[in-house]
């Protein structure tokens, strides 16, 4: 029964990563099929939604594209709380952004929903000449930490739809069937006082 029924899944997805790694650009590419050379910097977070059909399920993503600057990190819990999936983005031409990505992974492992589907995106894969982070290194790191890894380019569209599609596929597999309206809800604080909080 679980495999035949058509599932409708609402999934909260959050993008985290260093300033300028290309979080907004990835979302813009995925949601609107566009790329702009100069993307406005994100303040707080921006919201988008997009639906994908995979196998027997329809996954409606509610996407939170967060701000990358260090001081905005105190806002992040509000956005990853209750998220079913996360894409942690770094820029392959910037070593520091890869280190920043690892910190996000740690934070999500410690604070996020334990069943969260996590993807690591090595973005700006078109900038081969400027590469600072080897794909192998990121691949090994991802494997060790239970993430799946892809190098993406918001500019050329390489792997952008693929990474969202892969997440949708995994969500449709972990999602139990009888939850027709269902938000993928996990790790939701029961006390209202806690969820009203700006950070946790």
């Amino acid at each position, binding site marked *: 029964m679980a495999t035949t029924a058509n599932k409708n899944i*609402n999934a909260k997805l959050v993008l985290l990563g260093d300033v*300028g790694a290309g979080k907004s650009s990835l979302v813009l590419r995925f949601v609107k099929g566009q790329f702009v050379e100069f993307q406005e910097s994100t303040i707080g977070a921006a*919201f988008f939604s997009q639906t994908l059909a995979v196998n027997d399920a329809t996954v409606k993503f509610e996407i939170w594209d967060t701000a990358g600057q260090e001081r*905005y990190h*105190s*806002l992040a819990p509000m956005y990853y709380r209750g998220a079913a999936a996360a894409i942690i983005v770094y820029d392959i031409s910037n070593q520091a952004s890869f280190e920043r990505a690892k910190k996000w992974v740690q*934070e999500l492992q410690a604070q996020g929903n334990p069943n969260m589907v996590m993807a690591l995106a090595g973005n700006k894969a078109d900038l081969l000449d400027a590469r600072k982070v080897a794909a192998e290194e990121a691949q090994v790191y991802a494997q060790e930490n239970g993430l799946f890894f892809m190098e993406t380019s918001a500019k050329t569209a390489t792997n952008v739809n693929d990474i969202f599609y892969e997440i949708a596929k995994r969500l449709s597999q972990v999602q139990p069937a009888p939850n027709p309206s269902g938000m993928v809800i996990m790790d939701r604080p029961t006390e209202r006082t806690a969820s*009203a909080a700006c950070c946790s």
Partner: protein
Amino acid sequence: MHQTHSQREFAIEFQPQIHILRPSIHSRRANIVVKFQDLYGFTVEGNVDDVNILNEVREKVRQQGRVWWALEASKGANWYLQPQVSSLTEGIALKSSLKLSNLTNAITLKRLIRKGIPPVLRPKVWFSLSGAAKKKSTVPESYYSDLTKAVEGKVTAATKQIDHDLPRTFPGHPWLDTPEGHAALRRVLVGYSFRDSDVGYCQGLNYVAALLLLVMKTEEDAFWMLAVLLENVLVSDCYTTNLSGCHVEQRVFQDLLVKKCPRIATHLEELEFDVSLVATEWFLCLFSKSLPSETTLRVWDVLFYEGAKVLFHVALAIFKMREEELLQTHHVGDVINILQKTTHHLFDPDELLTVAFDKIGSMTTNTISKERKKQEPAVMAELDQRLRRLNSIKMDDEK
């Protein structure tokens, strides 16, 4: 010294009609989206109704201008610059020494400002009423040029971040997105990052400073407006390391929503929708990324005169205006879509400000200060807790 003359060309408030960039016969139909430039040179997308509204706003701006000129003619050119005037607006401490004419001026002025300062008068009126003029007068004449000269060529974390953001600040704007615009914005932001190293540079300030540059006559005045905004008008620590002031404002806002719009607050709570998901950006960018430019500046007109409580009025109004629609929603996404659509199409500032002040009702700076005091300890404790938890993750990692 760094005069930014060319930006004035974009305050095209006396231009008779808005030019639709791609006019076509089809664009007459209201449901067709057209691109056009607004009063401050921003390209906006909207339907023909929006264009009509903007043309009406332009006409109202002209009428408002005539009201201001008439008052100058009867009361003298700088009638609104009397120092006592602004201290009255809260209705606090009516100093007995105060002359009756000052009192009537204050009341007139408050009403007048809520109806909008004509764009040509904005630089002058903002500069004196916000306290920027006073701030500037306490330092040597050459402060700004000395500062910009002294910091030229210095590289810090803040300057790197600023450089990264220059082309990402209102890209495509006919003046801001030029080498000249970038250079002016850079000097203001870099200068400020050295003036207050606790703030340094916080993303969001780029949009605020950019808009200030468009309004003010000179770059130096824009710098002082930024200074007075961060140091006097807004709650402190809005933009420092962990944005604690901003966290406090968000909690105050949540409480005010419960008080002022209880039905909406209850419904959103059922949806587990945290208002700060959307309001954080409003407060940090002072609506400059969400509202059309003239509407944003009308909010700022009042902000500089009445203080930070104005942000709450406006944020509450955005929810209030869509009360019935919001109560019908079942998903967080729908709430956000309604709010975004609302803010992007608020081309008529009066529509927003009428709700903000008449419908929301009065809130004094005093009650809001008390509310902030109440929320501060909880915010600090939470931020502290988070920091400790993150540090313990790091320690585990090192073991």
